[in-house]
């Protein structure tokens, strides 16, 4: 399964509730406490690609922010390499959903941001290397406003890798990208991960994405979220989305999320075309599935073959 079985990250009894997640500047008091996480326990192995899926707003992003040290948990602790996390650390870099690259710096200045203390020559070399890794040759001097969404996300990945962390935290990093770009970025990410041997924690609400990327998929429950199940995806890469093990994993994840029998047909997320029922498989019981999702089955479906290419 994972290349290595040593525990890297150990999450013990994590619970958290919020007053007001924004900085309390606007108004001192917030609403009542919102319980976001409830006794989350999880172990991440060294070098593992772990996906965390769950319904929108369930708190998976909060979980990742706690693991990264940006938010304090109300209870429980996170240990990395046996030491408790007290704050963010350059050995573990966070990649943000809303794209965290600096629009006032060029591509190469962004990528070199974590290397400001390094010797200039070394820095230049590392930056050049990671420009190549993410395929942004020729854009070194460009400012982010001249780049597409996918390219910006590549810059952020390169900026993270250039700091040579051993863990990457990725919070729905491809969520804002168009369908095809998203597929391409996933494939590239898997390649990079295989080459660079990082431990990756990847939060997504896209079940297909999680199955395609992860060694194991952690399925979160509704808020207050706990670990509902952990589904292993023991399929060699590059992966065939239509392989029976893959379908079983998806089905299992959907089942845990409360969409029994919807696995092959409908992803329970908004604004995204679900995969079409495939030729080989009977059109799965659509009516009950639709009832469960409480919205009609999506007519405009993405062709199955598109997902395969990645």
């Amino acid at each position: 399964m994972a290349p290595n079985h040593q525990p890297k990250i150990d999450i013990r009894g994590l619970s958290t509730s919020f007053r007001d997640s924004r900085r309390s500047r606007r108004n001192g008091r917030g609403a009542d406490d919102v319980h976001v996480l409830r006794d989350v326990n999880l172990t991440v192995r060294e070098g593992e690609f772990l996906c965390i899926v769950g319904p929108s707003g369930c708190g998976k992003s909060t979980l990742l922010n706690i693991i990264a040290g940006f938010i304090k948990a109300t209870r429980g602790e996170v240990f990395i390499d046996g030491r408790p996390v007290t704050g963010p650390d350059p050995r573990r870099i966070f990649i943000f959903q809303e794209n965290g690259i600096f629009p006032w710096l060029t591509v190469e200045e962004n990528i070199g941001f974590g290397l400001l203390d390094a010797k200039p020559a070394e820095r230049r070399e590392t930056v050049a290397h990671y420009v190549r890794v993410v395929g942004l040759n020729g854009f070194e001097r460009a400012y982010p406003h001249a780049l597409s969404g996918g390219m910006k996300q590549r810059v952020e990945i390169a900026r993270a890798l250039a700091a040579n962390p051993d863990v990457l935290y990725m919070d729905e990093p491809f969520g804002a990208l168009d369908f095809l770009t998203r597929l391409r970025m996933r494939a590239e990410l898997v390649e990079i991960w295989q080459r660079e041997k990082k431990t990756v924690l990847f939060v997504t609400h896209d079940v297909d994405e999680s199955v395609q990327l992860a060694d194991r998929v952690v399925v979160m429950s509704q808020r207050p979220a706990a670990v509902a199940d952990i589904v292993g995806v023991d399929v060699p890469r590059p992966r065939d989305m239509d392989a029976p093990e893959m379908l079983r994993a998806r089905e299992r994840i959907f089942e845990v999320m409360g969409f029994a029998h919807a696995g092959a047909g409908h992803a329970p997320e908004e604004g995204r075309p679900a995969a079409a029922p495939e030729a080989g498989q009977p059109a799965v019981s659509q009516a009950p599935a639709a009832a469960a999702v409480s919205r009609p089955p999506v007519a405009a479906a993405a062709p199955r073959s598109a997902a395969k290419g990645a």
Partner: protein
Amino acid sequence: MGGETLRERVETFLLPAAVAVVVLCGWHAAVAVSGSAIFPTPYAVLLGMYELLMQGVLVKYIVASLFRVAAGFLLALLVGVPLGLLLGWFDRAFRAFNPAIQMFRPISPIAWIPVAILWFGVSDLAPVFLIFMASLFPITTAAMSAVQNIRLVHLRAARNFRVGRLTVFSKVVFPACLPQIITGVRLALGVAWLVVVAAEMIAVNSGLGYLIIDARNAGMRYDLVVAGMIIIGLIGLALDLLVRRLEQLEEVRWGFNR
């Protein structure tokens, strides 16, 4: 900006020119029809400008006004930007000082004129002080809200890479605030140019504001009054265009025309 056709570019020039011609003709006709002996025709204003230029007072007064604006404005920049950044960064300081700032802000800079004369007498210091007061609040407020509006992901990224405090400031906080500060600067410079004219009418005896009030008081020279007004308008326009060019810098363009 790039996609303008030749026709559009010609129009950009011709349309305002046409408006100017119509206004000037209307103005001339109005003066001619009313038979006013005091209000000047456009041509008389032009002659007035020439007269001022020949006497050497025009350049002297322009320099005097610009000098006062520059001094007061730079002072406000020097105080306002750091002050705003600090107040934006430290929530405590913000909560302590912001009510006072918001109370002082709506006081017209003109209202400070008696105070300025009391403190600084009839000297260059009085208008410089007034311009300082006028520019300080827009600049401080802009810098303050710029810091408060820095995107959380940028601050978190900076923390994540654990760069030094100075680097966080120079590579993240300050550049993140720059577009909003430039907007504040533009606003402040506009107000400063308004205020210098008012200040010079009362507190000193040189400058474009003084020119206007002096031309009226010493002989009802309304040709010179209007000439002064037009020059004030043109210089104000030039100042604004100058600051607007800052908005085109690569480092801040992300903050504009989104």
